[in-house]
């Protein structure tokens, strides 16, 4: 039987467009990854198999590093309210500029008497100043207690949701400071808190 020869056409597709789309998507994902916030102290967080993520809003972070305690709250309105409550409690007055500066501070660790001076510094200089940490001695109520309490009250008042407390600590941090922070929280009857960990597999 004579073989019917079918004219073969070229099956080459021009992939230039596909390549462009791929790189556009890549650029989008790189840029949309949230920028890492600079912590006042370097904290290598421990690993755990927990897969629960931190909530996006309504949480406060207590960062423990080098024996010092740093405090931060999520949400500019909550920060403003917290600062105003603390100012009233400790009888310090903050100028509107300082209050605005405070709403941009992710976490800080200075005694409240030095907070005014700290906020007066321009933002670029704040990370260079050595911060002594918030006092957290377990004699009665300490400053950390007041900060956490004001933040919780502010969050419930503004957002109607309870504040989630997260503790972020360095792996090699010695236990006593962590114990003081936990004891301070327990005094306020905060018995549930989250420990920030990185993911590791259970194998």
């Amino acid at each position, binding site marked *: 039987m004579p073989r019917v020869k079918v004219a073969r056409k070229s*099956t*080459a*597709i*021009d*992939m*230039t467009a*596909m*390549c462009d789309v*791929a*790189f556009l*998507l*890549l650029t989008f*994902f*790189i840029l*949309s*990854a*949230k920028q890492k916030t600079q912590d006042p102290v370097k904290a290598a*967080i*421990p*690993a*755990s*198999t*927990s*897969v*629960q*993520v*931190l909530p996006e809003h309504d949480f406060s972070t207590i960062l*423990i590093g080098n024996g010092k305690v740093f405090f931060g709250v999520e949400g500019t309105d909550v920060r403003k309210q917290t600062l105003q409550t603390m100012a009233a409690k400790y009888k310090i007055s903050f100028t509107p500029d300082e209050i605005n500066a405070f709403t941009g501070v992710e976490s800080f660790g200075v005694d409240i008497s030095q907070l005014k001076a700290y906020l007066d510094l321009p933002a670029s200089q704040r990370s260079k100043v050595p911060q002594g940490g918030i006092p957290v001695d377990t004699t009665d109520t300490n400053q950390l207690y007041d900060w956490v309490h004001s933040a919780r009250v502010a969050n419930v008042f503004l957002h109607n949701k309870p504040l989630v407390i*997260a503790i*972020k*600590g*360095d*792996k*090699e*941090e*010695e*236990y*006593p400071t*962590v*114990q003081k922070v*936990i004891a301070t929280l*327990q*005094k306020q*009857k905060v*018995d*549930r*808190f*989250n*420990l*920030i*960990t*990185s*993911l590791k597999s*259970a*194998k």
Partner: protein
Amino acid sequence: MAELDTSGGGKHKGGKVRTKKQSTRVDLTAMVDLAFLLITFFILTTTLAKPKAMELIMPDKDQDKQQLAVPASRTMTLLLGSNNKLLWFVGEPGKAAPQIEGYGKNDLRQTLIDQNKLITQASGGKPMIVIVSPSDKSTYNNVVTVMDELNIVDIEQRAIVDITPMDLDLLKKDNIY
């Protein structure tokens, strides 16, 4: 196949001089594969980089005084010492020989599983209670690892308790304090 044609079509020059024109077609399939691999990598790492939260629930401090009688036979105590070592015993201190262990999968996790099995069998189905007492020389990482192992082995009843001087003596005796 995917190609990028930049040759401009090898036109026949005609005449006797004929330069060797090589095809400049570039195959872009590999480039596209690479791009998609990078995309996948970035998608996965940004979702993994979100810090995870491990919940920790402490017993109410005020009710410490009227704590329910914890049956010592079902209680395993972990004392966390220095240098990533811990000491454990079941029941009251001094009655059973304490053992020292590391935090690895084969050490702590295996011990927890074994003791859990023994205790649930001995007490007819009642779960094991674990008390964790970190000492001053233990690190935050030790505490997190212990909590994580308890989560993996699925032991629900646990508590972090302040360490007593008697426990410190036990740690000192074995040189892990």
